[in-house]
């Protein structure tokens, strides 16, 4: 029952598993080696294999933003990309946003402005905000509303999220001066 690629099949169906390969991800500054199957989504690799459960799964379809992480500084939906495609990439997850015990200004502002309730969308919101701020894309509250709209918050913390990011923008601005 072997087909050409050496995969076991029952009828037309494959019963053996796709071969795994080793990749290296630089996650939150540390190199992590991972033996991974090609069908493993980056989000599942983070949550299930690397125990970095701060990154959330809200839809698995690129519709909610809960899974947002930074790859080489850019926010992406980690549910829409295969882990194996990121060999050698630098990944920043919510666990790597703070510097040790010192929270990132966005994190601090989220607490101060109560920019979350259940907290489930929060890591994605923070990663998106940090990525957008790094790219200099947020200038006005309307920018925030528009560009943060890929991150759903069912608890409806939006006005507080906008206020928190505005505060972080200001503190970043003053830090840069």
């Amino acid at each position, binding site marked *: 029952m072997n087909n050409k690629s050496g995969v*076991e099949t*029952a009828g037309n*169906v*494959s*019963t*053996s*598993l796709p071969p795994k390969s080793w990749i290296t991800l630089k996650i939150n500054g540390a190199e992590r080696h991972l033996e991974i*199957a090609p*069908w*493993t989504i980056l989000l*599942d690799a983070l*949550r*299930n294999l690397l*125990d*970095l*459960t*701060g*990154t*959330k*799964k*809200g*839809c*698995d*379809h690129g*519709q*909610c933003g*809960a899974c947002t992480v930074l790859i080489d500084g850019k926010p992406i939906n980690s549910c829409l990309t295969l882990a194996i495609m990121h060999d050698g990439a630098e990944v920043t*997850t*919510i*666990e790597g*946003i*703070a510097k040790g015990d010192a*929270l990132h200004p966005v*994190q601090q502002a*989220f*607490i*101060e402005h*109560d920019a*979350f*309730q*259940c*907290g*489930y969308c*929060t*890591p994605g919101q*923070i990663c998106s905000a940090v990525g957008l701020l790094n790219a200099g894309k947020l200038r006005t509250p309307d920018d925030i*509303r*528009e560009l943060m*709209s*890929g991150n*759903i*918050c*069912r*608890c*409806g*913390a*939006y*006005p*507080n999220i*906008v206020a928190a990011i505005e505060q972080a923008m200001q503190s970043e601005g003053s830090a840069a001066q």
Partner: protein
Amino acid sequence: MTTNYMGKATSRVDGRAKVTGAAKYAAEYNVPNLAYGYIVTSAIARGRITKIDASEALAVEGVLQVFTHENRHKIAEDDQSYEDEAASPGSPFRPLYDNQIKFSGQPVALVVAEEFEIARYAASLVHIEYKVESHETDLSKVRANGYEPKIKRMEGFEPVKPRGNAEKAFQRAVHQHDAEYDLPIEHHNPMELFASTAVWEGNGKITIYDKNQGAQNCQRYIANIFGFPMDDVRVISPFVGGAFGSGLRPQYQIFLAALAARELKCSVRVSLTRQQMFGLGYRPNTLQRVAIGAAKDGALEAFMHDALANTSRYEDYQEMVVNWAGSLYQCDNMKFSYNIAQLDLCTPMDMRAPGGAPGMYAIECAMDELAYKVGCDPLELRLKNYSEKDQNEGKPFSSKELRACYRQAAEKFGWANRKPQPGSMRDGSELIGWGMATGIWEAMQQPASARAVLTSDGKLEVSSATADIGTGTYTIMTQIAAETLGLPLQDVTFKLGDSTLPQSPIEGGSWTAATNGSAVKKVCDAVGAKLFAMAQKMEASPFANLKFEDVAFSEGQMRLKNDSDRGVAIGEIMRHGGATTLAEEATSSPDEAKQEPYARYTHSAIFVEVKVDEELRTIRVTRIVIAVAGGRILNPKTARSQVLGAAVGAIGMALEEESVVDQNLGRIMTHNLADYHVPVNADVYDIDVIFVEEHDTIVNPLGVKGLGEIGIVGTAAAIANAVFHATGKRVRDMPITVDKLF
């Protein structure tokens, strides 16, 4: 430093955990040798399974088992074992019980494998054959089948008896308004997917990390179904990624995870997909008729409210849709009815302000329509018919600062500048609409227990088995405990979400602050009393001849109330008493003798501005001002968030949310977050939350009323009323989408 925390805006005590990713939710416990379950759901709405072929799935490397109704081991058969605190009368759904299909999306198999991806892949290889039976999923087709539920879900859920003669008064009234208001099925869609990680402990015990709004409710459910001794089941849920009512009942993933763990004797995680979440309960499709008769000046003379909502074939789901007008407005002729009709869907579930949100949507839209007929300002109409007592129960209100809500919100909003004529206000190419509505929700309290452990280093741990689904429970309970024993906030820890903690009801109905808060207060007072007894025995005790009422705790000390300079540190008292820890447990129950003579409600007034593009008809909710009379506000910061979030929910309800059923398939088609629209950041502009002063010594010892639901009650109506004011177009079926405005 002061240790008076109640009423102070306080950042969430779990905030740091939530912004750093440290807060762990049900699917995030990566225990050793964890297996993964993937659910297969039914493709048909009604019928039975004639064949399940799992052979291909089982042949896949790494698949451990495929569970179906054919191979599962013994589970309970009686209805009672499946009942839970939020169940409605009937025969609860039993997962993998037999070959019967009761709704599309019903779980029919669980594939368990060594890796998540393997389980997911193998699930696609499970082949199921059905004998299809014809289904009905359209409520409008079965109006004639509506019936009054024979067994009531709970007291107060039935329509109140008619008063006066509403029909006659309606016929005679100068102004008559009679219309139907429809609400589609809506799904809670919390951001966290329902999940359970069942840890097989090896000694016959099972620990389940689960998403729910009541750990003990789930513990009993699992113990009853699988025949575990209660102590062998532990359910833990310290963080819950939103629920809005969807976690009030144990969901089927906890059953599946427990089943697989028990059979395989290993730890198993089962998560639902977003699509599968549309196979859980929902706010039912609700069709309502509101008929109001009024005198020339707008005084109400007749009020009739009839509701028909869908339920499943197996449970009589019920909520209180009607009755609200009888508490809110003065009118001597009132008549209410509430019926349900069965569809081939799963049973609905309480969703944020169940009954209240749908009912008040219809009532407050109808009142708005009446205002136009009478030719008076919608706010005037409300004030004219303001109820000084609850006519339904014939009781005075324990407190009702609704007038203050109207006044303060109207002023903040600038309501006085409204031009009454629809379509008469504009901003460039956008039509401006201003609408308002009233909100009402019950102020409830349940019995609950709490434990407090104080150690001589001044650290206090308090616990109760409730939940924090984003409500701020951790924070307000910590505030109550810290203030009661006069300790710094950071020295107080509150624990919840664990079935081993002291008894608590499910977290819902806006009753948690009142319910668990009263228990926390009581147990901390009990610890205080013990400290007092100890302090009295100290040498030259300043408290020797005093009563407990004469002292207060603040800043780590027990002090004389009338001479706060005289005090002794708590740690010192304990050292003198030779105690390293003081532990107390207390149960707080509603004081019925005190509460019964009064009607107890939270109220709100909502003012909304919308801007509607004149040509495209797109609607923006540019401003919401909502004033809430919710008794004492424990934490203005988290309280505001509660109301704000509910108001955002109301934007969804009014303009976006609809679980669209393909009636041919009997299946919900908008079963993802791209097709089921919920508000995103760009949909939300200014929301102003006002808490009016309200003192209530009746509702519970803390004087709090609860805030989880009130923000969504009436708010959708205020939006609909604003849309009418902008466009002159009255849309009576939610959501108000662009197509309905042409």
